[in-house]
């Protein structure tokens, strides 16, 4: 029997199990998937928790509801990958040999990377993150009783998963404080290491205008060195200071610890991966997908979905001894919640920055690219249903994995 081992049963690992289980011959292949957590979190939902739009119940389901029949599921911490021996060790000492390995261990925030963030005395007092369920829930409680002051939202360093989420957070905050009747008592400042509101110039300008319109102050090129929690300020490496009453941080995002323990990652534990085929740059029988890769694409669920289509094809080619196809183009598609029941949609890849137009049907939509509409907001809210019911199951969707220029205006 040949063995396919999938590490991580989050967005990407679950999609791959669902795509491959039905097509791999059961008399030839054994598929095993490993994760330490029984609960699947709908991470895009974390954004809505601080504002009471979603509760914890709205964003969780049992992982086991999403695995296809015939796949062996192991709930355990993965201790180490031994890629030269084609083996993986679990925390209970059990050794899992494999013929092919798919790594989908994702990324997580690591507040310990920034001096004074976790250990300065302010953590979960007036410093919160919303990239973890606990952080988002604690922030919801805090915001409920907050009477106003300076809200600073700081992106510590790039890359982060879902790079639009911090912007969505300030847009929603502007809306939420307006609803609460305290917008005039709140100053909102968005502090980022990027030179503007976003990574891509055209979208950066478009989104920058939104910040201005909503009276959200932008501080760019700010590389945080430390948090002075005693004095409620963040300090950059070039000694600039920003004071806060409430700090919402997006700490350094890093790949899983097991990648570091296995010596397979870069400085941030992301795994060097061919950006078009998704094969590990070092080991032929290892593929990497989702947030775990070092690809210069966005780290997002939509990206994991597009990657899955390419990886599916390439995995089948690999086991048939055929050359891999360099088909992944960095395609990302992100709904951006912009507050007051509206949203923006961007669609881009490695080479083409977000452009205006209609999506997914050229000229028709129903979604509008690089434009704020009510329909885009519904797209964002619908995404949760799509995620649980189509995306995780690896179903065919009416959109191509590769980005399409039709429907876009230059």
């Amino acid at each position, binding site marked *: 029997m040949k063995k396919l081992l999938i590490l991580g049963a989050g967005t990407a690992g679950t999609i791959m199990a669902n795509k491959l289980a039905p097509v791999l011959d059961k008399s030839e292949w054994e598929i095993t998937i490993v994760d330490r957590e029984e609960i699947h979190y709908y991470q895009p939902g974390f954004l809505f928790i601080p504002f009471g739009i979603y509760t914890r119940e709205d964003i969780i389901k049992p992982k086991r509801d999403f695995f296809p029949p015939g796949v062996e599921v192991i709930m355990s911490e993965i201790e180490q990958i031994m890629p030269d021996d084609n083996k993986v060790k679990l925390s209970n000492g059990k050794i899992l040999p494999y013929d092919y390995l798919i790594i989908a261990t994702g990324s997580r925030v690591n507040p310990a990377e920034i001096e004074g963030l976790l250990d300065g005395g302010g953590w979960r007092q007036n410093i919160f993150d919303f990239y973890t369920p606990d952080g988002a829930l604690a922030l919801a409680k805090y915001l409920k009783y907050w009477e106003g002051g300076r809200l600073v939202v700081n992106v510590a360093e*790039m*890359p982060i998963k879902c790079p639009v989420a911090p912007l969505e957070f300030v847009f929603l905050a502007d809306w939420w404080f307006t609803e609460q009747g305290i917008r005039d008592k709140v100053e909102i400042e968005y502090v980022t290491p*990027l*030179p503007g509101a976003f*990574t891509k110039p055209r979208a950066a300008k478009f989104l920058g205008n939104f910040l201005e319109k909503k009276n959200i102050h932008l501080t760019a*090129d700010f*590389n945080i*060195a430390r948090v002075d929690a005693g004095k409620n300020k963040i300090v950059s*490496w*070039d000694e600039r200071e920003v004071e806060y009453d409430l700090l919402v941080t997006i700490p350094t995002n890093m790949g899983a610890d097991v990648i570091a323990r296995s010596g397979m990652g*870069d*400085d*941030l534990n992301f795994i060097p991966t061919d950006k078009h085929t998704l094969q590990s740059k070092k080991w032929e029988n290892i593929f990497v997908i989702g947030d775990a890769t070092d690809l*210069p694409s966005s780290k997002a669920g939509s990206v994991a979905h597009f990657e899955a289509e390419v990886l599916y094809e390439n995995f089948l080619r690999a086991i048939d001894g055929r050359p891999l196809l360099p088909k992944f183009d960095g395609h990302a598609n992100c709904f951006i919640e912009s507050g007051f029941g509206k949203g923006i949609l961007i669609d881009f890849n490695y080479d083409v920055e977000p452009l205006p137009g209609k999506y997914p049907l050229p000229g028709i939509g129903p979604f509008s690219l690089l434009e704020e509409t009510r329909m885009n907001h519904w797209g964002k809210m619908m995404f949760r249903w799509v995620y649980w019911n189509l995306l995780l199951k690896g179903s065919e969707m009416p959109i191509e994995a590769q980005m399409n220029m039709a429907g876009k205006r230059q």
Partner: protein
Amino acid sequence: MPTKTYAGKTVEVTDEGFLVNPDDWTEDMAPEIAKEEGIEELTDMHWKVIRFMREDFKERGQIPSIRRMKNVGGIPTADLYKLFPGAPAKKAAKIAGLGKPEGCV
């Protein structure tokens, strides 16, 4: 491709002034590139950074990140910001004759 002349040698550069071929670079070009970046004099500390970057690049084919310079090169991040004010990763890479670091957008 635009070209530039440093230390009497004409080399190809990108639109943003990064050397196209790291192998074209010689140590005597560094002070001239540094001047263009607003750094009047390269101290021993600057050279420690430049040499680490060159060696690490030769070994791994990749421009080291600020984190790697700290973890592997033993260069404190605060020092980097003092030595190459503004955008240390970018400036240091340029002076070391390497391309534009990938993480820089």
